[in-house]
């Protein structure tokens, strides 16, 4: 018999940085609600207290301080040689045109290294140029191209994400639960109709459907919420129908019928409370999905109109400057990833706690 050599318990510890990983895993096991708390900080608290927390106005920027990097990044300094004005050609690496050198000299972002004895900039002089100023702690995460504080915009953006996810899930989930219950309870033609509608919905590419719907109405928060709930209901309907059918096979539903309970009462008082676990778990897991959808729509320009700082809008705005000013693009992405990740972790945890049958959703 061959024995497969498995890494021993201490294997991870033997790697560089391993003990920290082990420690982190132990923590995650010990505090399963930790992701939820991270989420609270990333999403809920800033969303509620946006006006109090945000250090700057999220709509009006300081045009003297555009594209400032995050606070911990210092000045970017290079040595450049002054060259004659280039025709239809950008200055090469290590070169600066005469006109921009003069301009920078006036602003004080360039100093002489060689030459410049006469106080004016000449071709062939070597300059020390601050091509990008460092960040300041006034704007901890930097500013965008209109000089607006990215942190403040992120904080206000969490409000959009929270509103959209809560309302869209309530609306779409509510619709899905009602339709799923009806399909399960009525059966027959009602069931067939609703489930074929679900199939049709699921056969559509969701982004395409969303774009069409947004194009049909005027863009705005309400439109985004309605569009996302239209995208969400089908999954609820399908899961709820399956659960409801299995619940209806249990004797207490027969018992309720024998007691004379109406269809409505059976659905609301006997089936629905037993579906709650499933619905709660599904809702938590869907939050991440909704935030990504909302960001995608905003990114594509079909979501929340500017200047409302939705995270997706911020990503879209930062995209064109991804090389020159990566922070404009990066921090909204981090916010989305953190929120979605912690929501999924919390959803997993809730699911395991409430309903282990749902492992495969």
């Amino acid at each position: 018999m061959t024995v497969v050599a498995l890494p021993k318990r201490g294997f991870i510890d033997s790697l560089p940085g391993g003990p920290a990983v082990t420690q982190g895993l132990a923590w995650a096991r010990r505090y399963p609600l930790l992701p939820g708390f991270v989420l609270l900080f990333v999403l809920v608290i800033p969303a509620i207290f946006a006006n109090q927390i945000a250090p700057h106005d999220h709509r009006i920027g300081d045009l003297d301080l555009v594209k400032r990097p995050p606070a911990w990044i210092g000045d970017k300094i290079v040595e450049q040689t002054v060259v004659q004005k280039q025709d239809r050609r950008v200055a090469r690496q290590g070169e600066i045109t005469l006109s921009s050198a003069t301009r920078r000299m006036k602003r004080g972002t360039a100093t002489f290294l060689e030459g410049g004895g006469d106080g004016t900039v000449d071709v062939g002089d070597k300059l020390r140029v601050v091509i990008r100023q460092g960040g300041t702690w006034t704007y901890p995460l930097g500013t965008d191209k209109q000089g607006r504080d990215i942190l403040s915009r992120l904080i206000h953006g969490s409000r959009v994400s929270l509103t959209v996810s809560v309302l869209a899930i309530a609306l779409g989930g509510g619709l899905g639960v009602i339709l799923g219950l009806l399909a399960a309870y009525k059966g027959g033609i009602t069931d067939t109709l609703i489930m074929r509608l679900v199939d049709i919905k699921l056969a559509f590419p969701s982004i395409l459907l969303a774009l069409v719907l947004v194009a049909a109405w005027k863009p705005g928060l309400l439109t985004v919420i309605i569009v996302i709930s239209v995208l969400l209901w089908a999954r609820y309907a399908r899961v709820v129908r399956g659960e409801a059918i299995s619940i209806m096979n249990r004797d207490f539903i027969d018992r309720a019928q024998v007691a004379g309970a109406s269809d409505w009462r059976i659905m609301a008082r006997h089936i629905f409370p037993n579906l709650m676990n499933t619905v709660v778990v599904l809702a938590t897991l869907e939050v991440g999905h909704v935030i990504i959808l909302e960001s995608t729509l905003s990114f594509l320009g079909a979501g929340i109109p500017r200047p409302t700082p939705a995270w997706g809008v911020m990503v879209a705005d930062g995209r064109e400057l991804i090389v020159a000013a990566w922070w404009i693009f990066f921090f909204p992405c981090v916010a989305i990833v953190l929120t979605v990740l912690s929501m999924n972790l919390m959803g997993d945890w809730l699911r395991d706690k409430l309903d282990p049958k749902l492992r495969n959703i």
Partner: protein
Amino acid sequence: MVNGAAPLLELQGVKKYFPVTKGLIMMKTVGYVQAVDGISFTIKQGETLGLVGESGCGKTTTSKMILRLEVPTEGRVLLEGKDIQDFKGEELRDYRTIVQAVFQDPWSSLSPRMRVRDIIAEALVVNRQVSSEEVKNRVEEVMTQVGLHTDQAKNYPHEFSGGQRQRIAVASALVSYPKLIVLDEPVSALDVSIRAQVMNLLKDLQGEYNVGYLLIAHNLATVRYMAHQTAVMYLGQLVEYSDTEELYKNPLHPYTKALFSAALPSHPDMIREEIVLTGEVPSPINPPSGCRFHPRCPFAMDKCSEEAPVEKEVAPGHLVSCHLY
């Protein structure tokens, strides 16, 4: 017949056929499961009818038709002389209070998300205009009657043991002063030690409420202990129907005899007639011709496969469907 003299419950040639369909879209009906095929019996006020038979013989379908959970394909179910399928509005609400049920599995028959007091009160709250004070009093009354503590009313079903859960189920069946309770294997899911308690409880309550029971069981001892009359079912039909004591002392139909010989005797030295059935229960989709029992019957004659036997009264109140008599 005057209404007052009508028996509590009467089944007249009740049949239930379930269509068997084939194909995904066209759903062509290719046959019928003859779950219940023409059975008749009566239950008198305050008496118990035991319905015995092996799994799949149509006992539960019969009970579902009595509870209006299934509509008979043919025949009528009469409650105090009136067809239960005709009930509407106020009459239907009355029917829903008069006829109640206790199901086999107390783990599945109580909603896990409802408090015990809500479970028990359901039939009352749904059908009658009663104040919450009256409901509370009545719930506490029935809880005491079935041997539960009234301070357990706010608990959820998972906080109770199997026997207690079945008591809750009995209490919820009793709350609306029923005249008939369908007991679908009420004790078979319980520990043997608790069975007797629940059976005694049911018997006591019958005396108190003068309620009729339809007791569905496969345990012959349970039926003998509780039922005034016993009906034996085989493949959707009644094969024998008699007073319980008469039936147990003098079983006539070969199937009844086989059932009794399969049950453990009360004393191991007891000498008994041994009838061991071979083969499986035939499919109710395509039941045997003539007497449905003939392929497995040790006494089968040529006639049995050709002609369905008619019910014969061999002794007062003792009906048998068999060509032997």
